[in-house]
């Protein structure tokens, strides 16, 4: 197994909800609680789960774009979760992010060339004279012709803009990219192009991805390891085979049973397991195991005590009292 690029320990992010004339703290959104996992060098780790389960918050907290409430993010031996913006700056070069909505991630007032060139100049990665060549190479990397450098974002399609966003992230020569639903807003055909592009770039530059998604078919296609989240907590994490073929957590089982199969014979015999009820509010998450309100095998213990996050062997992590 490759060494860990990032080690996340008990990471928490709670958002205060302020209401009233004096901004009293009225409630807390428990967006992310006690997440611990490693991100290995060169891997694609996917985080899946329903909307609002804390996948994106995890990505933002790792990059310190949302300052974590508690916990540690270890990068190169240092806990970057407590770094201020000035200390984060050199590290931001290594850790990049691509967002979901290609229509709003680019500044509408900057040309593509300016957008891609900005991080290069800011981090002083090359001289002014080399810049145009550098921008052209980056655009070529993401499959765009160099003349696009003169264009403005509003002249491009969604897929083209997502390529530009990727080129901009690559401009810093990062080691790690968070793909925060990076393909969810695109057409299916464009999704395939961008996924292939991501895989090509990973191979070419040895990138590590944290791939945040809800499309399980895509996740199965590209991931080395998969983490499953439910209501701000990690339920299960393991290799793609472990999670898809041998899910341990009842939530993962229900989730996996929802994936359609390409093989018609398999699809006919697929047993769907429908969960009852709705996801509880993260403002007031259930006690004990957060899944116990909807879990088909919930026990008395699940109401009172939080299941421990543990390795069941071979790097297959799960948080469930029912798993031996």
């Amino acid at each position, binding site marked *: 197994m490759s060494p860990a690029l990032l080690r996340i320990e008990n990471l928490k992010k709670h958002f205060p909800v302020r209401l009233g004339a004096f901004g009293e703290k009225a409630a807390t959104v428990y967006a992310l609680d006690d997440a611990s996992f490693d991100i290995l060098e060169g891997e694609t780790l996917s985080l899946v789960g329903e909307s609002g389960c804390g996948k994106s918050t995890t990505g933002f907290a790792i990059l310190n774009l949302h300052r974590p409430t508690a916990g540690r993010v270890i990068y190169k031996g240092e806990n970057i979760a407590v770094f201020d913006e000035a200390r984060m*700056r*050199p590290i931001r070069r290594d850790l990049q992010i691509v967002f979901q909505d290609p229509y709003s991630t680019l500044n509408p*007032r900057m040309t593509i060339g300016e957008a891609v060139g900005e991080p290069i100049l800011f981090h002083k990665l090359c001289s002014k004279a080399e810049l145009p060549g550098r921008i052209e190479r980056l655009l070529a990397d993401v499959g765009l*012709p160099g003349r696009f450098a003169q264009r403005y974002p509003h002249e491009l399609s969604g897929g083209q803009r997502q390529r530009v966003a990727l080129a901009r992230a690559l401009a810093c020569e990062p080691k790690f990219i968070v793909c925060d639903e990076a393909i969810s807003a695109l057409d299916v055909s464009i999704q395939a192009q961008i996924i292939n592009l991501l895989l090509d770039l990973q191979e070419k530059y040895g990138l590590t991805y944290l791939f945040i998604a809800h499309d399980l078919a895509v996740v199965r296609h590209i991931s080395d390891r998969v983490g499953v989240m439910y209501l701000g907590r990690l339920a299960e994490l393991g290799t793609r085979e472990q999670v898809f073929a041998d899910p341990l957590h009842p939530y993962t089982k229900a989730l996996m049973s929802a994936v359609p199969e390409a093989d018609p014979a398999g699809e006919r015999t697929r047993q769907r397991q429908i969960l009852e009820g709705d996801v509880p509010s993260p403002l007031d998450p259930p006690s004990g195991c957060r899944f116990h309100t909807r879990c088909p095998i919930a026990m008395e213990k699940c109401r009172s005590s939080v299941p421990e996050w543990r390795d069941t062997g071979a790097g297959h992590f799960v948080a469930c009292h029912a798993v031996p």
Partner: protein
Amino acid sequence: MSSAPLLAVADDPPVSLWRDAWGRLIRNRLAVAGLVMVLVLAFAAAFGPMLTPYDFLSQNLDARNAGPSLVHLFGTDDLGRDVFSRVLYGTRTAFVVAIVVTALAVTIGVTLGATAGFFGGLFDRIIMWFTDMTMSVPNLLLVVVINASLKAPLSQWMETQYLATLNPFFRETIWIDFLLVFGSMALIAWPPYARLVRAQVLSIRSRPYITAARALGLTNRIILTRYVVPNAIGPLIVSVSAGLGTAMVLESAFSFLGVGVNPPTPSWGNMISDGLRVWQHYPHLLAVPAIVLGLATVAFSFLGDGLNDALNPRGSK
């Protein structure tokens, strides 16, 4: 991977949003008409008084209340002063007041609004309370109160200072007029700018491209100057253009009521006020300043509408 769909952008020259907006503006006839009228008025304000043979104050009691003629283009008033010269000088008054008041109001409004929007929290609450409070006071009343309570004591103080020091600076009380007009009007004009800028900053602050810029490690200064300001300034431009027109109307209204610029300094407002008394006999004394004021209002409102359509194309129609 096929490259065909990637080449979908045509080969015509790239268009920045600003140039795009300019293109839309000059295709809009009303906006162009407004722009031309504004430019003509601005030219008149800047150079007008130099172009007429008459001083706006010089009286010619032999030619009082003369109708329009080649000698006096717009006739003369009850003291034989050339109305054309006075209207030109009034244009200058209107522009000076409008520009200074708007500049003051924008400075106050942008500073407070941007602070409130950017920092949020308690700053935001206090500033917005203050803004709402100011907005809740009737404009006219506030200006009248300020002028009525401050003008007399200030003038008196100037007079005693002049008598004591004989410094010519204290003899010219016209500056008090302007100071009070500028000050009181800026005081009522800034809240809309503060609200606009706060809303803009709030909305832009949460856009993904700001997070993306932060993720690249860019400094707050770069994010503000290259990301927030260029994207926030469009609505502000529209608002300033409309605000200039409003300030001119307000100045005229206050001068008309006698709480603005005082005679003998010509302002459209006090010219209308003078003309109103004798309009049955000398209609041109009322018509000329009223028409010019009307044209100025129309010009700024056309230009403002045009700018709005040009800068926020999705919001129109």
